[in-house]
């Protein structure tokens, strides 16, 4: 078991996609699909990243695609509880100010 997991669950009016493990090219397509599917199902999607110990540019690309997709639909898209590893790569890619980043899943629902 390598600890890589991608689980989507519906919580109230939003879908939370929980990622864990090392998000890399070997399965980032699966992550991308899960995010796009969630956006197809509902107008509010959060991607929970607290258990992600590593993410590469293909994983970041999946998040960027989710962000762009949500914006074109007028949906809400947030990154939730990002780990330090994810934050470092977002900063390197200068995307840390592009995404809506929240600490608590409940914030995905909006105020």
């Amino acid at each position: 078991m390598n600890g890589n997991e991608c689980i989507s669950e519906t919580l109230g009016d939003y879908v939370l996609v929980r990622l864990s493990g090392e998000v890399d090219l070997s399965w980032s397509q699966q992550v991308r699909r899960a995010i796009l599917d969630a956006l197809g199902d509902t107008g509010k999607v959060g991607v929970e990243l607290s258990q992600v110990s590593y993410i590469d540019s293909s994983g970041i690309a999946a998040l960027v695609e989710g962000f762009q997709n949500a914006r074109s639909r007028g949906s809400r898209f947030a990154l939730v509880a990002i780990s330090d590893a994810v934050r470092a790569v977002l900063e390197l890619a200068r995307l840390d100010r592009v995404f809506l980043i929240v600490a608590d899943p409940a914030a995905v629902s909006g105020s």
Partner: protein
Amino acid sequence: MRPVAADSRDSARASGRRALSFLADLSQSLAVSLDLKTTLGPALTRTMDFMHAEGASLFLLDPATKLLECKVCAGPVDIVGLKLEVGQGVVGRAVAENAPQRSDDARRDARVNTRVDAETGFLTRAILCVPLATAQGPIGALEIINRRDGGAFDADDAEILRLVAAPMALAINNARLALEVAEQQRIRREMGLARSIQKSLLPKRRRGKFPLIGVNLPAHEISGDFYDYFDLADGRLAFFVGDISGKGLDAAFLMVRVASLLRWSGKAAPAPAAWLREVNTELCETLQNGRFVCAVVGIYDRRTHKVVIANAGFPPGLLDHGGRFEELPADGPPLGIIKEAEYGERTLDLGGAALYLFSDGATDVREGARARLGADGLCELIRRYAALAPEPRLRALISELKRRRLVDDTTLLLLQEPRGSEVRELLALRFPADPREMRRVRAELRTALDVEDVAPELRDRLVLVVDEACTNVMRHAYCGGETGTIALRVTRERDMLGFELRDEAPCVDPARIKPRDLSECRAGGLGVAFIDATMDFWHIEGLPGGRGNRLVMRKRVAAQVQNDRESD
């Protein structure tokens, strides 16, 4: 009894046969010899006799002066050396018009030049002249004078003379070409000799742990660049490198003189500034027509690792402190211009650094249609091969320069204290180009970097960048169902981490691999941007043979503090 008509037909046939055998003999005698002096004279006499003429002459066109000069003649009047302008007289006209000229009554013909007759008392009655035609136009003319029976030349005569002129023109042309080839071979031989004499003046490469190596690449056979080094009595090492203004033979001769002068003056071990001053004074007295000499002289003390250099108008030297370059500009004007010139000198602590001195030929190389390489381009090349020992590094630099277009003599001198190989291998992996392999590769790399005490933040960045480089190979190099392996090698030399990635995929075009602008938000192309933002240096190249790529990346890390834990 045979009818009269048949009789004259027979005689026509007989004279035709006679003409043919004459032409065949003439052609053959001209064809077998390249020595025109011995061939043309008899050929001309035979032509004169065959044509029943009183005189014959052959004129050749001098391409330089555009004058026609009589080279050979036969008959009672010697006109060898007579010069005519093209268009002048019957001969000049034959050449100008590239067409036969016939004068049946020369005394009343305005075309005929009467000067020779007036000077010699010879009476010119009839003239027939044909050009010596070649594919490149007429190269001269063949002329016969006066039929012996007193009559005029006729159309048949003109036709035969034209046939005679053809092999003559060919023979003359061949002989000229042969002469040119021989001349070129002679020049090449002498240039080769000059080159080997020049080469013998360059110092012999010393074996063992010697800190100086130099290379001289002439743009042509001979060079105006020079370098030399020699031991001083006190054990220090003196060296110089220079460049004579201008190119070619005279620059090469001057180079020999200046190099001897610098060596002679340097043997007395003056301080570099005084060394330059002395040579400058001497050259100011003797150099002529605007020539000057750019040079650097220096003295290196191997015990203190201090080097003192003085630069007279030579391109700025480069001191490479492990990737950081210090420019060492000129300390005074070129030698041989200002008699009172004063030169500064600078003392450098060589330590582990490398001092590069290079003539402007090294930065003037052209990259295709692109501009010159420049000092920045040279620094870039030096960085690329910084991991190599001095000798292979210099070889690599030279082959890089050669791969571009050399436009000037090029000389490189490298001063660096040799050291034992301190390159340690931290990790060497070969794995299938499959994304599922990367988790293990990252783990091994992380461990290797931890062993080296690389700070966690930088460690994670380096792991990310190597991962991106590998997945780029998988996605872009091994595309279209190609499979293969990736070899990763991580090394450390002092405080420099080196990462080398090799694959067996078709060569990628390095020009297409550029970091994207990180300020725009889009999904693709992040990997190269990560590499660019993290590494101090990176370079990708296709391996020879169209297969395989090599990516080299380097990152300086904080020097290890080894006694840290023991002292705790």
